[in-house]
């Protein structure tokens, strides 16, 4: 096998997302149809989806999706889960065996709630406790990979084309108010199940088209705060940076965008004094979290979605609106595939986040 540097693969992943601001349920089949249109942006080495609002019957529990390499890893991981969480429900994630998806690991789902006395002993809040446990599994239990652990949301991913991944996971059995999708064309890192997108921690998930030139600087910085990058691909670090900035530093998503896609100093110099001060502060304070290189990302979180391009807009990203639904995609055609008549369609500028959230009063 040729090693990195000996082979050049032209890059071209695909991302898309759908968000219903009125909180109505959209079937997983819709997002699968949208991403399927961009098949030639992927090469069959990774596809995945994140759905929000898909587990209403268990919405107060963390839904933990795990890949296992072996029965032994599962036993070890379940012992760990048992001693840290109340497991309300556990099962294999139902899949449909299809020819184009092979070498599947064991894929399990657990609905869990942290053990109360453990949380008290740890003096952490529930999210931090859960996040630390999941990072520990990924770090310490050989052959176990937590790839989703939020409430009322779930990630489904595999090695394959995204439309095949949707059939494999029976995505038509899930409905939610928000979906993101990814078709992968890995360039610098291996195509394996854990390396497919989305990458998620708690309820925050990221799909990404591009490559991060600053990866190692970002990785070293975020690992100082207790995260651990072990899924062998660059996108993972974006998830941890955003989790750190939002959950621990209390930044808004707009501010996060100003950190990871910070404007050039020459652009900041054109702003009025207050805005220039604010942007300079964010750039200096969080300089290790500046992400360089081309990217377009979609970030899913409870109740909302953010789309963001790198500041030079080196990857494509289109936004469409129809009534109370917002669509995001690498290509306009993939939006038109599921909604031919749009009220509005536009391409946001580089570094300018587009953030949508549920309408006021909508509960999911």
């Amino acid at each position, binding site marked *: 096998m040729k090693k990195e540097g000996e082979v050049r693969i032209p890059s071209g992943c695909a991302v898309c997302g759908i968000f219903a601001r009125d909180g109505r349920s959209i079937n997983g089949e819709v997002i699968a149809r949208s991403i399927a*249109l961009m098949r030639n942006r992927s090469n069959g080495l990774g596809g995945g989806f994140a759905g929000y609002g898909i587990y209403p019957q268990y919405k107060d529990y963390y839904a933990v999706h795990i890949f296992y390499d072996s029965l032994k890893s599962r036993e070890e991981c379940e012992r760990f889960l048992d001693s840290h969480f109340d497991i309300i429900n556990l099962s294999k994630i139902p899949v449909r065996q299809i020819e184009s998806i092979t070498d599947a690991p064991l894929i399990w789902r657990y609905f869990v709630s942290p053990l109360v006395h453990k949380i008290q002993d740890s003096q952490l809040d529930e999210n931090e406790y859960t996040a630390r446990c999941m990072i520990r599994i990924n770090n310490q239990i050989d052959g176990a990979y937590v790839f989703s652990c939020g409430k009322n949301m779930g990630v489904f991913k595999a090695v394959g084309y995204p439309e095949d991944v949707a059939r494999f996971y029976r995505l038509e059995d899930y409905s939610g108010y928000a979906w993101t999708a990814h078709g992968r064309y890995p360039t610098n890192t291996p195509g394996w199940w854990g390396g497919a997108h989305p990458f998620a921690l708690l309820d925050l998930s990221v799909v990404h088209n591009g490559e991060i030139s600053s990866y190692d600087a970002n990785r070293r910085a975020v690992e100082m705060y207790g995260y651990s990058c072990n899924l062998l691909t660059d996108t993972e670090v974006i998830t941890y940076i955003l989790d750190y900035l939002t959950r621990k530093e209390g930044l808004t998503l707009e501010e996060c965008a100003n950190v990871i896609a910070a404007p*050039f100093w*020459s652009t900041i110099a054109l702003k009025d004094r207050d805005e220039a001060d604010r942007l300079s502060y964010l750039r200096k304070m969080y300089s290790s979290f500046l992400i360089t290189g081309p990217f377009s990302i979609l970030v899913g979180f409870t109740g909302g979605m953010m789309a963001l391009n790198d500041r030079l*807009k080196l990857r494509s990203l289109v936004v469409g609106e129809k009534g109370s639904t917002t669509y995001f995609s690498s*290509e306009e055609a*993939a939006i*038109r595939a599921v909604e031919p008549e749009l009220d509005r369609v536009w*391409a946001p500028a580089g570094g300018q986040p587009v953030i949508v959230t549920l309408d006021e009063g909508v509960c999911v």
Partner: protein
Amino acid sequence: MLKLDALMMDENELKKEADTAEDVSIINCLGQRYLGCARKKGHMLLSGTPGNGLASYLDGARIDVDGNVQDAVADTMNSGLVTIHGSAGDALCYAMRGGRVFVSGNAGYRAGVHMKAYKDKQSLLIIGGTAGSFLGEYLAGGTIIVLGLNKGDDSPLTGFFCGNGMYAGTIYIRSRVKPVNLSDTLSWSVMSEMEKQEELVPLLSDYVKIFSLSLDAVLAGTFARIRADSSKISKQLYAAV
């Protein structure tokens, strides 16, 4: 004219079939790539949303699109005419060598990067709305016109780094507002009425006909011309950003 429905055909089959006729109309385009690529003759009429790489290497044919187009349209186009009754994505007319591309709406980032001109090959890109950053970067020849008809001539019509590193060719902007960060190796000059008549009328006359605009109304706005300042462009080896 051969009539095809993109919904009914596989992408490769569609392109093969389209190549069998000089004049072809394709409805319901949805992301099919490289349509009209290197076409020499005839007329291609598209509706829907054709995919990336439309009209790349176009070599003489005319392509009309009723709708928006995506990325990398008219890449390295050599001659012919492309009209887009909608907006265009990123990297429009990259390294275009000749021919004309008319867009009624906006263009994304990196439109007209490294366009060229040589003898009878004079590439021309006209954008009816606004353009994203890096418009005409490294321009080596040819002409780009940004009209901002959806904006008015008192707004900025381009993003950052307009014309960075350009050393030949011309960018006309229908606005009194200079693009932000315009490099100091470029000259910006507001045009007189006579200059507008002499330079712009020949370039715009087909455009206004195709999109049913009034030439007088378009010319009524303030126009400025951006060119490389020959006394400065060779002063340093690398462009300072």
